[in-house]
């Protein structure tokens, strides 16, 4: 049962990923990308990692894709199509993606996947993730957590400054 669902999800992901890069209508490409991301969320649900799946849906589905759509809505008309890519560009892109696929396949095939004991397995609680995220003992993630929050504050202030533009300097 799980195997069948895995292959269905994998087929969806690959199909829409290809559709996304080959589509000449930009918003369709974005929607195909959304299906790819939802498929990945489905994989997380399949391996019983609900928290990451919900994060995937919220951040990628609800955040980034909505942002993409917003940008497309502002700059693109429904009748416009992207220009046809010349053959040379297509070839370079194909070579690069083949190289990337090769590296990934090599990494996966050489990595030994040890079989873990499934009898002691229990699905990960959100409270546990939270505790590890804020722990400053060994294996805790407090430093990256804080660094990311500083980065986000910097980004927000930067966005406000950029958006305010001249008005900020003239008034103050």
């Amino acid at each position, binding site marked *: 049962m799980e195997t069948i669902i895995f292959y269905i999800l994998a087929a969806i992901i690959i199909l829409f990923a290809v559709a996304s890069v080959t589509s000449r209508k930009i918003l369709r490409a974005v929607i195909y990308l959304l299906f790819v991301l939802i498929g990945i969320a489905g994989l997380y649900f399949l391996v019983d990692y609900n928290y990451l799946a919900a994060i995937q849906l*919220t951040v990628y589905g609800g955040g980034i894709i909505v942002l993409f759509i917003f940008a497309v809505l502002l700059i693109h008309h*429904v009748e416009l199509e992207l220009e046809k890519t010349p053959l040379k560009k297509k070839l370079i892109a194909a070579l690069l993606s083949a190289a990337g696929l090769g590296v990934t396949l090599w990494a996966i095939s050489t990595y030994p996947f040890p079989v873990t004991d499934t009898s002691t397995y229990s699905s990960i609680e959100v409270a546990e993730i939270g505790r590890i995220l804020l722990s400053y003992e060994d294996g805790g993630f407090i430093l990256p957590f804080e660094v990311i929050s500083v980065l986000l504050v910097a980004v927000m202030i930067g966005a406000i400054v950029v958006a305010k533009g001249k008005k900020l300097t003239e008034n103050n």
Partner: protein
Amino acid sequence: MNFLQMIIPLNITKTISDWIYSIMPETAASYTIMVVIAVAYLALFAVAGLYLVLLERKVAAWFQLRIGPNRVGPWGLLQTMADALKLVSKELTSTTKIDKFLYNLAPYFVIVAALMAMAVFPFSKQFQAFDINIGVFFLIAISSIGVIGILLAGWSSNNKFALIGAMRSGLQTISYELSVGLSILTMVLLTGTLQLSEIIEAQRTGGWLILQGHIPSVIAFMIFMIAGTAETNRAPFDLVEAESELGAGFHTEYSGMKFAYFFLAEFINMFIISSIAVVLFFGGWLSPFGITENIAWFPEVIWFLIKVLGLIFLMMWFRWTFPRLRVDQLLTLEWKYLLPLNLMNLMLMAIVIWLNWTI
């Protein structure tokens, strides 16, 4: 087994599942049960949507001192059924030069997102399809997908009013999602769990969460209802489909059943927002003061529905009381008032829990 025990939903489902298991091999039976549950939820979805439309019309009529629909069936009860039949039989029109694929996809985005959210609600102790351990978070994740349908509908219809409606919808939903999330987070702080069934269990002994968390809870409830009304694109936040400015907003170019999907989804979203509020603030299916707790045959789903209908009535009351906001007022309300208030409220709730001031 006496007759009264037969009407408990648990026993009905148990009888059906026993019967299915007795006539089929085990794997086939489990798939059949999944399909039966899905069909049951679809039916619930359709009926709830249709009768909420009728309720809205009746409430609107009552607020405006009219009678409302009263011709089809007793007290007009079959009016929305007739409307649905009419919509099914209508021609599906579309304008030229649209993006056909996205135009047809958009209604399904909205309706599937709403249906997925329905699956996690505990209607009663046994009546819950999917008790996921991140319940509330899953709801937030799903509701953030729904807006994509509206954006697609507005863009792909190749109509400027629809596009303006979609843009408004996007900025409104992105802004108010924050308030919905933060007010839910305030309550999660109090329960310490995201699982919906456990949130309800936490209210069995200590009283409803709106009482347990007193001041910060009440503030969180008010913010949640305001932001929730905005999330569902209802008046006074219905800039998305403001009739006097935009025709019908993002669904101007839709007709027949495709229009009905958007229309139904709006009412189902209202049901979802009210259900979240009921679970988080008013004890879900728990009876007030535990009056029916010891009556084994009492279907607890009744309490859930009474509370949800109460909150839906509140949202309809908003609609017929307040005038529509302008876009700048909408954004000022969210970013200058609700968001800072919400963050302060979160701190207040943390202090209340830290000092053990909960009731």
